[in-house]
Each structure stands twice: as structure tokens, then as C-alpha cells.
């Protein structure tokens, strides 16, 4: 049942261990429950425990808590500066000059988490060009960022 999650996590050169008996799939969404919540989740719930992500048209879209869990593991990541942090949250791509540290892969086509200087996970993207290249080039294409919470608020008001 958690193959989409495992496959997604492996894109970042890591793996995470989740108790499969506590993962509940509701329609296209995956939730990780505690033992306590599992007992209460006998009826049709709307949301529960930790939202891991959803599968839509064959693609897995992770929840931000899953990205946080991955950030605690050895997932590929880049740490960005203050200016790039906010631009990324606003949905922009990452330029080479905004990166202060790379941990893990630098290979084009791989995925990487994007963290700020406090180690907080801001989202993730795909490496689209060589990070050793010139500074004024987009190196990470934004796929998902926490600015989505603001965009969702706008949509629900």
C-alpha cells in the first residue's frame, strides 16, 4: 500500500520506515495514524493524524510532514539563503547564487529538499542544471513549497 510513498522518498536518495499497519488510505490520500487514532478511525473520517500525501493521475504529491520526516533523514537537500527562502516560498525556482550548502546529490534530474538556514523544510524541487555552473542560473525547479498554505487559505476564503 505504501509503494507510492516509498518510491517518492527514494527519489531523494533515502528511505523512511513507517509502520504500515498505521497507514490508512482514504480515497487517494494517505494518513499515518497513532495506535490511539487507529482505534477511533472506524468511521469515515475527513482528516487524521499525519497527512502523508495523495496520488493523483498516477503521481504522488507529498504532504509537508512527510518532507519534514525526510529532512530528518539523509535525503538530498540544499540550504538556501534568506532572500532565496522567501522567493522559493512564493513559488519561484532556486538560482545557484541562492544556495549556501548542498548535501547529497548535485546530479541533474535528481530531487532535493529545500531548507532554510534554520533547517526548516520549505519544500522540494528537481535539479535542472549543474550546481557547479555559473551563479545566475536556475538549478532547482520548484515543485512544491510551504507557501501553498497561504495559497490554500486564499482559495478557502
Amino acid at each position, binding site marked *: 500500500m505504501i509503494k507510492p510513498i516509498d518510491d517518492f522518498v527514494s527519489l531523494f536518495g533515502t528511505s523512511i520506515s513507517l509502520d504500515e499497519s498505521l497507514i490508512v488510505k482514504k480515497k487517494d490520500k494517505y494518513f499515518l495514524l*497513532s495506535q490511539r487514532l487507529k482505534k*477511533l478511525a472506524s468511521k469515515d*473520517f475527513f*482528516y*487524521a493524524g499525519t*497527512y502523508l500525501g495523495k496520488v493523483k493521475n498516477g503521481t504522488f504529491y507529498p504532504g509537508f510532514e512527510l518532507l519534514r520526516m525526510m529532512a530528518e533523514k539523509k535525503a538530498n537537500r540544499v540550504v538556501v539563503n534568506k532572500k532565496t527562502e522567501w522567493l522559493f516560498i512564493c513559488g519561484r525556482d532556486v538560482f545557484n547564487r541562492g544556495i549556501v550548502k548542498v548535501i547529497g546529490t548535485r546530479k541533474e534530474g535528481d530531487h532535493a529538499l529545500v531548507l532554510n538556514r*534554520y533547517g526548516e523544510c*520549505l519544500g522540494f524541487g528537481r535539479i535542472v542544471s549543474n550546481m557547479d555552473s555559473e551563479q545566475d542560473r536556475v538549478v532547482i525547479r520548484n515543485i512544491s513549497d510551504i507557501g501553498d*498554505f497561504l495559497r*490554500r487559505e486564499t482559495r478557502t476564503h
Partner: protein
Amino acid sequence: MSNKEFFTDRYRKMGWKYHTVKLKKTIRINTANVNKPSDLIKRLQKQRLMLTKVPFLKNGYWVEESRFSAGATTAYLTGLYSIQEAAAQIPATLFTEPNGKTVLDACAAPGGKTTQLADLMHNTGAIVALDINRQRLTALSNQLERCQIKNTIVYELDARRASQLETSYARILLDMPCSGNFATDTNWFKRRTIKDVQRNAALQREILTETVKMLEDDGEIIYSTCSLEPEENELNIDWAIKNLNMRVEEISCYGQKGLTKVFGKHLDSSVQSCIRIWPGQTQGFFMCKLIKSEPA
């Protein structure tokens, strides 16, 4: 007599003179996600979000000055703090030791108090959060995800049908749907009539009646509204004492004693243990703790 005159005259009869208020935005630190609150305060101040501690709240801060919305920071988006009006931060703190317990949040959306409860419980135990509005449930789910809450399960369910879940609760938060107050709604006097107040009061009694059935014998209910109208507050609590075998437990927090004489009607003396907040430093609010009476 205009609507405004009608309501402000009622307030005068309850001992409060109407005046306009200007509320400050308030944030609440999500302590489960923040190791050292003072570091977060410094971080926000560096971004020119100037904060002062709310004296009657443990984790609440007023935003004194800001060049941007308090909701537009990385710290907010990563769940280090929430935006929650000062008085609205009080009810969830009134429970005795909610850690590890099964808690019902019967009218949960948009989730400010749910995330606060989860934070106070350090993500232990379980919160069952209900609401009937699907759009508001989506907002609630977003709040839970943003604040990294792990102990909450959300149902699209009317609180008046809460017993369908066949669960009993040690703690129940009834932050009731209510008429609100003028401090947070500039058009309040134009929009509200006494009929709205009476309709909400009846709905609140239905929710109370349903949820009392699911309260464990030694359990606690926190009842709260952001209404100033006694029909939704003291009169409903007096009714619960007389009809649901409940009693009011003393609580200690910011605010004034509940009214025991309302428009000539004398209420049970224990209603004074409720807390009423007139608008000023905060919006208007009412809250109390209900527990089951000993069998006669």
C-alpha cells in the same frame, strides 16, 4: 429604537457601557514546535514583527508593529506560531491535565483552538474534531498540517449528532457557534437581531444536551462563546445546571465573574463562576467549566 441602541442598552443593563474597541492582532507560539520561545521572538523581531507578551496568556503575544502580515513568514508557515485572538486563546487552557486523554472538539473549524489543544497535549492522546462546513473543514485540515499536529481525527459531522461516533470523552471543548460580537465585526449591529441570538441559544442547548451524554463521569466540558448576549451564555449555563445535571466549576483566568441577575431574572449562584469578558483589550468572550453533579 435601532438595533445598536437595543443591544447597547442591554449591555448597559448588564453593567457595561458600550464603547468602540480596536483589537491588536495576537499570535500564539506552538510550543511543541519551538524549543526556545525567546529565540523565535528575536527571530520575528529581526523581521520587524514587534511583539509584546499578553500578560494573561502563557504563549500569547500582541503584534505591536509589523510591515507585513503576521501570516506571511516562514515561521508561521512551518507551524511555529498561529494567529489567534487573545481571548480565544483562553478556553483550551482551562482543562485539567488534558495530556493523554480523549478530547472532543465539537465545533472545531477553522481550528485555532484545536491546534492549541493539541499543542497543550504535546500531541498525546486523541482529539476528535467535528464540524459541518466542508470548506471550514478544509481550513481546519490545513491548520493541522501546518502546525504538525498528529493526534487529531476530523469528521464532517454535526455536533448535535456527535454520539454517532460511539466514543466517550474525558474532556469536551464546546466553542459554540454563536452570534459573535461587535469588536470583531464592524457590521455586527446591522447584521444581528435578537432572533439570531435566540436561534443560536437554542442550537447551543441542543449541542450541550448531545455532548453531555458522551462525557465521562469525571470529565470536564469547557463551554465558550464570543457572544456578549446572556441568552447564549449565563442563561444557557443556568439551564444546563437545572436540566442536564451539570454544575459549574471555579476557573481562574482573565475576565469578570458571570452575571447571576440578568434583566431581572435570578440565576443559580454558581453561574458567577463563569467568566465574562467585555470588549477592551480583547474581543468579548464568555467561558465556563462544567462537570457532572454528584447524584442526588
